[in-house]
């Protein structure tokens, strides 16, 4: 079981991170990779940049708890979560969630679960620099979405925990 959780300012190579998780493994039959990117628009406004504030210490701890929960719910062979913070521009990768399992159901479900929890419980806050009509920049905080809370809520009734691996 390979678990990687990292927070960093710098960009990262998605393919290299997935390769690091799966390298040399012959028990992995399924890898699901989700990448979240910075779009050029937010609520109809054109974005110049996105700044991610975070709570150092708690962000790692909270993501660690989500990963533990995912491993308890599904039979996983690898999990990688990398989340950037700081100033990002449209097109930049913000977050990577990669999951590995022997068959695809666990990898798909765990990746979806981890993203829904990252969206609602990981202590990050996005601030958008939009370009106004007169080229003056204003920064606004992105508001949390009810649809993200609903997505996270659907995981509240956990399925029966899987049996310990033999």
């Amino acid at each position, binding site marked *: 079981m390979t678990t990687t959780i990292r927070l960093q300012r710098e960009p990262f190579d998605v393919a290299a991170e997935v390769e690091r998780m799966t390298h040399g493994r012959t028990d992995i039959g399924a890898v699901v990779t989700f990448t979240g990117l910075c779009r050029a628009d937010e609520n109809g406004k054109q974005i110049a940049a996105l700044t991610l504030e975070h*709570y150092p210490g708690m*962000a790692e701890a909270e993501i660690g708890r989500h990963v533990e929960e995912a491993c308890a719910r599904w039979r996983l062979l690898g999990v990688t979560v990398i989340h950037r913070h700081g100033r990002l521009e449209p097109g930049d990768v913000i977050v990577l969630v990669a999951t590995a399992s022997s068959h695809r159901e666990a990898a798909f479900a765990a990746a979806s679960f981890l993203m829904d929890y990252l969206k609602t419980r*990981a202590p990050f806050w996005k601030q958008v620099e939009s370009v106004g009509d007169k080229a003056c920049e204003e920064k606004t905080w992105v*508001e949390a979405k009810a649809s993200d809370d609903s997505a996270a809520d659907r995981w509240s009734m956990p399925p029966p925990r899987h049996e310990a691996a033999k």
Partner: protein
Amino acid sequence: MRLLYFAWVRERLGKSEEQIEPPANIGTVGELMAWLAKRDEQYAHAFENAKVIRAAIDHRHVRPDAPIAGAGEIAFFPPMTGG
């Protein structure tokens, strides 16, 4: 105890952290928020919509009725927008 503030809570207060000793009759996170809101206009503005403010004690999310006794670090912040 150490209080931390993030995002627009931090902006409205003009600071990201402070050391505070609340009075002994403050027992829960919710009571602490209500007490902070009365300190001055900046605090009142930051905590005016208490239902929207989230809290964490020692890096764990807590509800407003969570006791603050023994807490090392309490953070207040808006709903999160990571991922």
